[in-house]
């Protein structure tokens, strides 16, 4: 694709109109996953293992089935046996067997909260009563949750049948290590040995939850003809369809998924938990079934992000140029193998030009739920370690930490650690903007300190489908397949309006079910505004071509003599030269010129570019209690081109605050019996309004030549730098390195008191 088409002179792109779905969402009318009801619907309840690891000797459902109103009971035995095939659903590919086993235990419960049976009844109360009466006979087995414990060669096996990774010649396998991922360039050891300055440290992070406020819920109906309809909120109805069909072992064409409004996902709703359960309960009962999770179930059984145990060693020359990096990262993935450690390795030094490095990633199983994507999956953990080390290095050299980063920043056209060219990236611009920001030079108060960090996310493009149709009054109808999780309807409408040259208010956007339009990958990976945006722009261009043909017919000339300019067809030659027809005028005559005007197309763009950001954080430490307050925070990010700047700022602010929560408050806490001790929002404390200052944002706009309007993905980058920005600030304030997250008051208090 060529350079951006309108180079900075936009009519609608870059404005801040009210989002099309706004009124429904501020009046309580929007129908979310937890709001949908089908006629004659049953209510489901799930029985979950209280043990982190146990063999299921037997399940007695007879008492449950005797409860009045109970219509169906399912266990793992009701799930079709499937060979371990890879599910083909765009990016969220994975093993169908793993997914099925995570949804319902088969012979072995693998974590506290693992589903072992489900019931459906005419009332919620009857379903809960029946669930209590299901008798599961467990043989409790040894469990392991902590990464270091699970990594050990003598660790108890997380489950039967683990395919342990081949760790190389002469290396004994470790029972719970399923992947070793080495990545190297140059000679890290030699460069380290000759480096003028070396820093090193060990960093620890606990698993954290995405923390979306809407719990999972699904309604499914399995009809007599074998067709299954599903209503749920997710980050992608098409991938819910593919995953559900794989787990149920039925044709994709037999599953239709209706997308409901989604109450937050952050990666955690790119997978499925309830849909096959509801479908099987429906198959048995012959009625629609709704299964919904409580908050406790969400914490115990759905996707946390990996915890990490990370060693970082960096070497720099006397001028502050980083000459060597040695990094070892161990990530948990729950009871099933995952891919985050790969992404972690890939993002470890994606933002620096380093000639010699040796990065080794390890995927470690533990008795926890199958980990799920969480905003820039795998990147924040490693970035915390690397960026804290860079700050240590800057301090050792007596260099300004932003100068240090500018000296090492990866430049446009560089080759990333994965071998691909990084293109028109904007890290240097972000660092320059951060350095020039008044925040960076503002004086600090007593007990305050400042931290900075920068980081990246590769972003993605991939398959999307969109259609644009005209109504005969000139209304423009955009249909697409990506759930609107943070204002994407507005962005799509703005891009359609810009392309067609019609006012934003003339465009309406529908998010279609899987039976109504072609495939789109999930709303995730920071891909939607980029890839689905291109699908919408291309569909709008298709409509323009049709309108040029129709105008030509009306003028009795060739379509080649008609140009589209600012929302109007303009005749260039012949008797009608200089005449114009508006979109509405052409639409009104559609019936007389060949029929309805509409264009649908699928695209698979991959000229997305990685996004980069730099964050500045001021903290204040209460020396008496160890409490840390974030008193000022600034996010600088290269966003390519902000289509709707308010929602881009929103991504930057929201991502930063999630990262601040990760740094200061959030962690999964398991007790010695392997049970989750903080499965609720009181004890798993996400940031609240009174914890936070305003989050200042600086949008650097360095256009992506691979998108007609210059878009780069923006959603994931902002959660990457906060962990180190906060962590380094606290370390400075207390005078000791704080390398274990979360930096809770007790840790700060201990550090201040010689602990």
């Amino acid at each position, binding site marked *: 694709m060529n350079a951006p088409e309108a180079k900075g002179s936009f009519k609608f792109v870059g404005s801040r109109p009210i989002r099309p779905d706004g009124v429904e969402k501020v009046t309580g009318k929007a129908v979310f996953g937890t709001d949908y009801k089908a006629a004659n619907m049953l209510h489901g309840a799930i029985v979950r293992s209280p043990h982190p690891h146990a063999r299921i000797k037997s399940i007695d459902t007879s008492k449950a089935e005797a409860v009045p109103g109970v219509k169906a009971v399912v266990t793992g035995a009701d799930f079709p046996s499937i060979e371990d095939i*890879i599910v*083909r659903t765009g*990016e*969220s*590919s994975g093993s169908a067997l793993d997914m099925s086993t995570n949804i319902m235990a088969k012979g072995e419960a693998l974590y506290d909260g693992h589903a072992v049976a489900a019931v459906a009844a005419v009332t919620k109360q009857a379903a809960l009563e029946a669930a209590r009466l299901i008798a599961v006979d467990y043989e409790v087995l040894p469990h392991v949750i902590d990464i270091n414990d699970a990594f050990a060669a003598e660790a108890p096996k997380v489950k039967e049948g683990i395919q342990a990774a*081949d760790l190389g010649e002469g290396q004994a396998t470790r029972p719970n290590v399923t*992947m070793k*991922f*080495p*990545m190297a360039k140059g000679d890290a050891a030699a460069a380290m040995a000759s480096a003028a300055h070396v820093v090193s440290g060990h960093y620890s992070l606990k698993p954290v939850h995405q923390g979306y406020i809407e719990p999972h819920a699904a309604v499914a109906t399995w009809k007599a003809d074998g067709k299954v309809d599903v209503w749920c909120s997710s980050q992608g109805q098409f991938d819910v369809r593919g995953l559900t069909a794989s787990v149920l072992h039925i044709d994709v064409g037999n599953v239709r998924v209706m997308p409901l409004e989604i109450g937050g996902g*952050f*990666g*955690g709703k*790119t997978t499925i938990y309830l849909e096959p359960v509801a479908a099987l309960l429906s198959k048995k009962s012959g009625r629609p079934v709704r299964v919904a999770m409580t908050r406790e179930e969400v914490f115990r059984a759905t996707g946390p992000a990996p915890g990490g145990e990370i060693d970082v060693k960096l070497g720099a020359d006397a001028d502050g140029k980083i000459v060597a990096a040695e990094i070892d990262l161990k990530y948990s993935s729950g009871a099933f193998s995952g*891919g985050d450690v*790969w*992404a972690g390795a*890939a993002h470890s030094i994606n933002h620096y030009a380093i000639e010699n490095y040796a990065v080794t990633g390890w995927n470690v199983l533990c008795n926890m739920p199958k980990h799920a*994507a*969480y*905003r*820039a*999956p795998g990147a924040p953990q490693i970035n915390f370690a690397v960026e804290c080390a860079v700050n240590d290095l800057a301090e050792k050299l007596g260099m300004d930490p932003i100068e240090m980063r500018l000296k090492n920043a990866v430049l446009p056209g560089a*080759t990333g650690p*994965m*071998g*691909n*060219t990084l293109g028109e990236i904007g890290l240097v611009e972000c660092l320059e903007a951060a350095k020039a920001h008044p925040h960076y030079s503002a004086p600090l108060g007593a007990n305050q300190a400042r931290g900075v960090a920068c980081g990246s*996310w*590769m*972003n*993605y*493009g991939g398959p999307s489908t969109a259609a644009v149709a005209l109504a005969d009054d000139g209304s423009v109808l955009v249909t697409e397949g990506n759930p609107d999780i943070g204002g994407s309807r507005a962005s799509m409408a703005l891009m359609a309006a810009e392309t067609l040259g019609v006012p934003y208010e003339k465009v309406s956007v529908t998010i279609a079910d899987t039976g109504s339009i072609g495939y789109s990958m*999930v709303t*995730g*990976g*920071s*891909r939607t505004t980029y890839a689905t945006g291109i699908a919408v722009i291309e569909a709008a261009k298709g409509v323009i071509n049709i309108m040029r043909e129709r105008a030509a017919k009306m003028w009795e000339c060739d379509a080649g003599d008609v140009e589209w300019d600012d929302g109007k067809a303009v005749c260039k030659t012949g008797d009608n030269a200089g005449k114009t027809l508006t979109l509405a005028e052409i639409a009104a005559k559609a019936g007389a010129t060949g029929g309805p005007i509409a264009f649908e197309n699928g695209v*698979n*763009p*991959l*000229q997305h570019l990685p996004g980069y950001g730099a964050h500045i954080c001021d903290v204040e430490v209460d020396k008496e209690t160890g409490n840390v307050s974030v008193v000022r925070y600034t996010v600088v990010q290269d966003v390519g081109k902000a289509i709707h700047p308010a929602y881009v700022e929103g991504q930057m602010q929201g991502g930063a605050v999630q990262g601040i929560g990760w740094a200061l408050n959030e962690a999964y806490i398991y007790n010695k019996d392997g049970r989750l001790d903080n499965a609720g929002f009181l004890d798993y404390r996400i940031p609240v309004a009174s914890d936070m200052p305003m989050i200042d944002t600086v949008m650097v706009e360095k256009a992506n030549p691979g998108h007609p309007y210059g878009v780069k*993905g923006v*959603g*994931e980058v902002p959660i990457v730098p906060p962990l180190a920005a906060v962590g380094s600030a606290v370390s400075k304030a207390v005078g000791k390195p704080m390398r274990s997250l979360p930096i809770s008051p007790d840790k700060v208090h201990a550090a201040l008191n010689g602990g």
Partner: protein
Amino acid sequence: MPSVKIVVMPPFDREFFGGTDRFELTAKTLFGVVNQLDEIGPGFADLADVRAAFAVDGEVQPDWSVSLGDAKEVIVMQKVAGG
């Protein structure tokens, strides 16, 4: 047809090619590359469209049917899932 250097990034090198990560082969398109890699590492083709991305001389190429022309290098990478 000039030959093209293939660089296989982890984890595919170990998973399919016994740890070998460099190949030299001749192919018109990425379809040809995938088919030949599948002969060396059986099963690779089945997973390639799901898990792999291909960078041709540094640029990620989504369309496997585009002519490789006189491309020097194809890098086989894992796709990155987003959140």
